[in-house]
């Protein structure tokens, strides 16, 4: 037996928990959910996104930035001072944790965008440009999240250890998503751990994006730059493009990201539905995500689980009262829900959605 201890059983773990009535959930909960799927990761990446964790700063964009070079911090802070109204800046507190080799210095900046800077841009476009500029032009500094009232905490280690490292037990939010990484195709580094996040969107992902090259070239046409060396990054930019900039409803996103096969579209009896699916595949063919995946998308008002259209990666959904949970494995659900009223495996290409019912103090 001893000689086989090196064996690692496969994976990637995804998970998420949302209180649909907006009650705060401790970061301990998502750490427990991910810890229950320990076997799915191999210690080469863990991370979390918390929504509603900065209510007192909810009108500021919270930029979480990793630095592996001190001079880059000065450069970023200079850039932020010149292009935003910098309300507060601080190093994100961490604690020494067995299993986590301390990584880059991670800071957070609460910023507002001065209206006179906008010219013809929207505030969100302005923030996206700022994030892209830092990640592209200042290597050694990486913006890992940029939404309001939310933040990403990630690094190299098992997810439950990363949660301890970032002291997530000291945070509360109405929604959390988490990830345990088992990197297969790309390098394991702090910025390459999941979630990937931009503005209000965050994504965790189990699988691989075979269409990464096509998707990447497509989003680059709209000004996004993939700099974080993990395929999942492109999903966040696709979602920002389709949802925020093109204003498409979520239902159209499923039809674009994980569309029905052509033969299934041809069999649709409703001619309007058939025409809509055909048009979306024709117009957004370059945004189709090929390859095996199950993903959890978090946005300010809820979270969504989705698998590829032939279900090559696992995902289960569960509900107990106002709590909505997504996880790679059913067994993990019991780590956070005592007695779920419903537990199900979403069908391939069909979303499982949890929706926040409250309207004040949301992230975004």
């Amino acid at each position: 037996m001893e000689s086989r201890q090196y064996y690692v059983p496969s994976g990637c773990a995804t998970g998420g928990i949302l209180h649909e009535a907006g009650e705060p959930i401790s970061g301990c909960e998502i750490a427990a959910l991910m810890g229950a799927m320990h076997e799915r990761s191999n210690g080469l990446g863990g991370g979390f996104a918390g929504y509603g964790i900065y209510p007192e700063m909810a009108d500021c964009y919270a930029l979480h930035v990793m630095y592996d070079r001190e001079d880059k911090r000065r450069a970023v802070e200079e850039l932020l001072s010149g292009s935003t109204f910098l309300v507060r800046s601080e190093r994100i507190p961490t604690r020494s944790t067995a299993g986590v080799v301390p990584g880059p210095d991670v800071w957070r900046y609460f910023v507002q965008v001065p209206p006179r800077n906008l010219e013809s841009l929207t505030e969100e476009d302005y923030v996206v440009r700022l994030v892209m500029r830092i990640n592209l032009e200042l290597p050694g500094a990486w913006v890992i999240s940029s939404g309001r009232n939310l933040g990403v905490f990630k690094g190299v280690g098992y997810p439950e250890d990363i949660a301890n490292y970032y002291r997530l037990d000291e945070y509360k939010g109405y929604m959390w998503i988490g990830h345990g990484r088992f990197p297969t195709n790309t390098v394991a580094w702090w910025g390459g751990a999941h979630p990937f996040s931009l503005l209000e969107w965050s994504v965790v992902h189990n699988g691989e994006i075979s269409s990464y090259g096509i998707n990447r070239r497509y989003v680059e046409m709209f000004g996004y730059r993939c700099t974080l060396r993990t395929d999942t990054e492109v999903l966040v930019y696709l979602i920002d493009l389709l949802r925020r900039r093109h204003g498409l409803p979520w239902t159209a996103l499923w039809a674009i990201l994980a569309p029905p096969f052509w033969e299934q579209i041809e069999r649709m009896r409703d001619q309007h539905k058939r025409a809509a699916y055909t048009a979306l595949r024709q117009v957004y063919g370059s945004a189709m995500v090929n390859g095996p995946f199950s993903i959890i998308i978090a946005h300010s008002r809820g979270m969504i689980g989705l698998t590829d259209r032939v279900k090559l990666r696992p995902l289960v959904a569960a509900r107990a009262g106002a709590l909505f949970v997504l996880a790679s494995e059913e067994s993990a659900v019991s780590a956070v829900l005592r007695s779920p009223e419903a537990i199900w495996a979403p069908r391939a290409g069909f979303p499982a959605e949890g929706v926040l019912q409250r309207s004040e103090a949301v992230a975004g």
Partner: protein
Amino acid sequence: MLEFSAKNMSHRELNFALRQLVLSGEREIRVCGVCGHRYLGTGLPGPASITVEGVPGEDLGAFLDGCLIRVLGNAQNFVGNTMNSGQLIVHGNAGDIVGYGMRGGSLWILGNVGYRAGIHMKASHSQTPVLIVGGRSEDFLGEYMAGGVIVVLGIGCEGSTRPVGNWVGAGMHGGTIYVRGNVPGHRVGKGAKLAPCQEEDLTQLEVLLAPYCREFGLNLAALLGDPFVKLVPASPRPYGRLYVSSVGEC
């Protein structure tokens, strides 16, 4: 009967304990507190029987070799991966890839199964694996099936067209799939074809379903009274000439 809790045990410790017990002659074991423990009962021989409370992890009963494992709730993915003989019984739903490469024994699920159930099942002269699903199956049921029998009862799908998903039996070249209810032609995968159920099929179904119905308290006569359809390979050797045909011939 020997009972213990798997709480605070790793999957390695739990499997080590089960193996020690079964090999030392314990006949009846009950484990509670199971939560995501993988490879439960891997390769265990008979005649022991193990009852599982909680949700077992991936690859439940992989390479099972004669043991009986009964799960009182749901199971996850890869149930009965390459099992050789014995019995796996799930009193709930199971996930994807149930009975992957199964080559003997029986695998009974009371509820639904996910995608790719019975993928690449195979039979030999002495062994015929049997997978019975009480509820419905998602896509790719019996994909690349080479032997054995799959039965989907579709309980709860009455009147609907989907006791099974799309691409049923895609690439199959052996074995038989029975479905209670209707399977529309467009759901039949390439390599499989629909066939009517004959008298001998009904006899076989009765033999297979009688113990299944006893286990789960189902009405055998009522189920057998409903129409079944059968899926069989369109060809026993679909790729026989793949590498020998000249251009234009395939």
